[in-house]
């Protein structure tokens, strides 16, 4: 590969990544603001918390979880970055969300790519989901940070 082609690939790759991030993150946050104004957010997060609560997640963790599972780690992380100012996510929650997302994220795009190549849908989704749940549950149960315990 010539250096020219490599540079072009580098620039277009970085540009498309940045552009995709910008579009999806702005979209996520605009939808969030609208949903918040209509007070739908608290209710839906409460519903989600009924499912995710046993792994140690609080209600605020639902947002980055959803964004990450659907769009990928970069976007789940983006939601965490953006909601830091709202102070609802303590470090332990960020860690738990990260563990779950590390094992199970980008369910639409990443999985879709592999299905196109001929991989079995069941084996490329179910083990990730089960392990994401299991490892998060285990870490929440066994790992307590030395400084202070999680309130509530």
């Amino acid at each position: 590969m010539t250096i020219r082609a490599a540079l072009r690939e580098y620039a277009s790759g970085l540009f498309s990544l940045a552009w995709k991030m910008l579009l999806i993150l702005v979209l996520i946050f605009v939808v969030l603001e609208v949903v918040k104004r209509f007070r739908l957010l608290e209710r839906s997060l409460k519903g989600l918390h009924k499912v995710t609560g046993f792994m140690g997640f609080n209600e605020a963790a639902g947002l980055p979880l959803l964004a990450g599972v659907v769009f990928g780690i970069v976007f789940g992380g983006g939601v965490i970055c953006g909601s830091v100012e709202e102070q609802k996510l303590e470090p332990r929650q960020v860690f738990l969300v990260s563990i779950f997302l590390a094992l199970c994220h980008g369910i639409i795009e990443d999985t879709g790519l592999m299905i196109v190549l001929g991989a079995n849908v069941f084996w490329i989704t179910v083990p990730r989901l089960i392990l994401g749940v299991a490892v998060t549950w285990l870490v929440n149960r066994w790992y307590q940070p030395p400084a202070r315990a999680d309130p509530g």
Partner: protein
Amino acid sequence: MTSQCLDPLRPAPVNWARTLWDGTRKGLLATGKLMLVIVPVYTGMAILKYVGILQVIAGWCRPAMRLFGLPGDAALALVLGNFLNLYSAIGVMASLKLTHAQMTILSVILLFSHSQILESSVFFRIKTKYGILWAIRLVTALIVGYALHFVIR
């Protein structure tokens, strides 16, 4: 801001311009914060790829592919997928002659563990334990890949 949103008795009227601007501002801010780590990391990865060191690493990994019932050439897909991203792994996968079972095993390993440098940098940016997360992903990927080799054929 929060006081008017949380008052259950008197919902504030929706100010659309304000709502859209708030969302856009937060989205832009989050993108900016992430780009601070992504740009240098992405640049480093492009250099790795150009220098050809990843092909050398893939060469070292070839013998281990037997553990997963994969041909040696699959090592390049795993190494590119882990250091760079899924798209570069897919470029290699498309050129391999794999059975459905092999394709599934390779996909599972890659889906558990891919784009490690970029995604670890996101974990670094949100100030969480990126080293532990990296290890969890890699170990899980290898164990599940090894186990699946016995389950599906």
